[in-house]
């Protein structure tokens, strides 16, 4: 019987050399822990993984495993080669939502390790591409116990299947001067409002939120979220001219011109003869390049908030989609601002639930019905910031163009009026 002796792992052994930390060494440590309940499981897991390396095939299949009260959040895995590797025949993953920004105390991590040693495999991924902590390797029987223990220390299952998915936010406000809104507040208020959609999957397909504090978009929201909230600002960027001059002196004029001024996508920058910086804020599109390079001299303005882009996704089935602008700017300052964001998120989820076809992401739904219909349904007015340029195809019926134009001018007048009144 293979059970008491180690499986040979000639392919995996090769992944132990080299300077990068090796997950294989980690798996072997678990296998070799004397008396651990997970040691036999990890021996067989290593055996199955080596078998995959030899056959160049995967040997897991899905199934249905859940915890009491919830419909999703567990990724079930049953081995197709359990005959040869019986101890890892069930190797499920618990997707657990981390605190936004992925902050941990060492005590919390140790707690999680203890729970996972008792009920699981001892293998944890920080974090999956989905944004979850992935507790990988649990039997069907222990899944409930592991969840109960994690739940008791204040952690909850994330999303899987056709449901609201676990969100991600950048470090943002906690340690980044570029951050234009409180990412973790938006993240928690939205997800915690719609937990039912996460834990009891009933949407046409997955729906993901991601929160980046500025257009550097460190959590890849624009392409990897159905609903991306990306921080930005409306007023002028802040320029500390003393720091600008220092920077020019430090790196030289040519470098500043070649690497900052000339790289501005909208030609909004100009270096004055006295080495101060001129910014055409009406042309600037808040791309972040000059702020990134001249970090000490330049910073976002004061009138901060976020842009909302929707519809990002990967290939299946129409091809990759980037998110596109749905709300060019929302103010994110007061509690009411955040409440409005949550309400808007809810409207979008409702639209998705009511209108998407099975297995269709919202980007595909929007393409299918057309952006104008989507905007009408969620009661958002068209805005030139939503497009690269106006339509180029004449195939459109325009008999109510004049009415629509009147509405536009009315809206503009109201906006201008409100500004005047507020002053």
């Amino acid at each position, binding site marked *: 019987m293979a059970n008491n002796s180690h499986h040979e792992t000639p392919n*995996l052994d090769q*992944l132990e050399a*080299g*300077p*990068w*930390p*090796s*997950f294989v060494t*980690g798996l072997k*440590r*678990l296998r070799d822990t004397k008396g651990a309940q997970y040691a036999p499981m990890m021996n067989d897991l290593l055996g199955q*993984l080596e078998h995959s*390396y030899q056959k*160049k*095939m*995967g040997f897991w299949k899905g199934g249905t495993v859940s915890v*009491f*009260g*919830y419909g999703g959040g567990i*990724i079930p895995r049953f081995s197709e080669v359990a005959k040869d590797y019986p101890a890892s025949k069930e190797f499920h993953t618990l997707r657990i*939502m981390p*605190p*936004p*920004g*992925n*902050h*941990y*105390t*060492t005590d*919390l*991590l140790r707690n999680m390790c203890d729970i996972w040693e008792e009920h699981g495999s001892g*293998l*944890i991924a920080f974090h999956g*591409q989905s944004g979850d902590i992935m507790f990988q390797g649990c039997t069907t029987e222990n899944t*409930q116990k592991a*969840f109960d223990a994690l*739940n008791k220390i204040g952690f*909850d*299952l994330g999303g899987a299947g056709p449901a609201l998915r676990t*969100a991600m936010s950048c470090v943002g*406000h*906690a*340690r*980044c*001067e570029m*951050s234009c809104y409180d990412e973790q507040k938006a993240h*928690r208020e939205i997800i915690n409002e719609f937990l039912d959609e996460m834990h009891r999957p009933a949407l046409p397909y997955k729906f993901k939120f991601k929160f980046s504090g500025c257009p*550097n978009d460190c959590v*890849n929201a*624009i*392409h990897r979220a159905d609903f991306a909230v990306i921080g930005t600002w409306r007023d002028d960027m802040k320029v500390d001219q003393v720091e600008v001059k220092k920077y020019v002196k430090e790196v030289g004029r040519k470098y500043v011109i*070649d690497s900052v001024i000339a*790289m*501005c996508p909208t030609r909004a920058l100009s270096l004055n003869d006295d080495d101060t910086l001129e910014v055409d804020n009406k042309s600037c*599109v808040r*791309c972040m*390049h000059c702020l990134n390079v001249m970090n000490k001299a330049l910073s976002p303005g004061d009138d901060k908030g976020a842009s909302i882009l929707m519809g990002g996704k*990967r*290939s*299946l089935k129409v091809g990759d989609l980037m998110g596109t602008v749905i709300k060019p700017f929302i103010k994110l300052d007061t509690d009411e601002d955040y409440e409005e964001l949550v309400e808007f998120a809810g409207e979008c989820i409702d639209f998705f639930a009511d209108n998407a076809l099975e297995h269709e992401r919202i980007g595909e739904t929007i393409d299918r019905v057309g952006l104008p219909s989507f905007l009408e349904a969620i009661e958002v007015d068209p805005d030139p910031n939503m497009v690269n340029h106006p339509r180029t195809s004449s195939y459109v019926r325009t008999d109510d163009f004049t009415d629509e134009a009147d509405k536009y001018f009315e809206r503009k007048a109201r906006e201008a009026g409100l500004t005047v009144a507020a002053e």
Partner: protein
Amino acid sequence: MSEAAATPREPDEVGVPNPFDYMHPVLKDNFGNWDWHDRPRPGVLHHVSKDGTEVWTVRAGTQRQMDVYTIRTLCDIGDKFAEGHVRFTTRANIEYMVSKEEMVDPLIEALTAEGFPIGGTGNSISMVSHTQGWLHCDIPGTDASGVVKGLMDMVHDDFIKEEMPNRVRITTSCCQINCGGQGDIAINVQYTKPPKINHDLVSATCERPSVVARCPVAAIRPAMVNGKPSLEVDEKKCICCGACYPPCPPMQINGEESTKLAIWVGGKHSNARTKPTFHKLVVANLPNNAPHWPEVNEIVKKILVCYKENARDWERMGEWIERIGWPRFFEMTELAFTHHHLDTWTGARNTMNMSTHIHF
């Protein structure tokens, strides 16, 4: 058995936890009040808040899929050399925050002694964003953590230094669903053969209408095979995308002949300078030679060397190629341009050169 023991526990639907319970106190006190930062050396960030408070962050690479011993080692280092708080980046690097500059060097020493590389900041090659592969996915064509370990060994020097023109973000995906996302370089499974169907199992395992609906090119149709209801693939139409395999495992897409790797370049998510872009195909049909994928790594290395030597400061991979042009890119990297590089999918025309802007 008592009734209490038989009654399952109701979940406490706590949702997303409160990060302030775990956040480093200096980050908590200066939340939303940071002013600027610099990098005293690769792998170290130094942030200063508007009231002058400082915090140093040391970033180290991990294997992402960690055993409890590795995690506890990281915790021991955090308790002994930092202040008991850590965080993880989107790309599975661990970060330690400390409130005093003199804590930085001992922390770096301790991490280095345990084999965790310090880096991944600024213009470096950070950790490869990757997926599950043979370790845990039910549909993978290759492994994820293994290929990534090999890649990170190869680019280790550029992880611990900041000598690239701009940051380099590499991703891998072990099937064409591509959980890995866009990247300056993306290494993705690219199938080359239509699925091989086990007709005996189809009717029992697959919900046939939804499998038919899944195919992007409508190549699947219901059929009777050997007197059993099954599915049939029009192999002339099939683009070998593998989308039918997850909902219908008897339509096996993987195999030595089918599961190949492709390399894509020039994707980015950031809005800095140019708008975010998708990555573009460079090479396909590379062998899935586990555990080290030498053919893939050789080409990745070549592309990285060309980029490093030729791109201007702050040009991401895609921006560099846009400046020098694709002809020069293929020439420099000594890779072939074929009719497979001409897009044929919806919107293909928008990828063509609609001008006389020609690179000579």
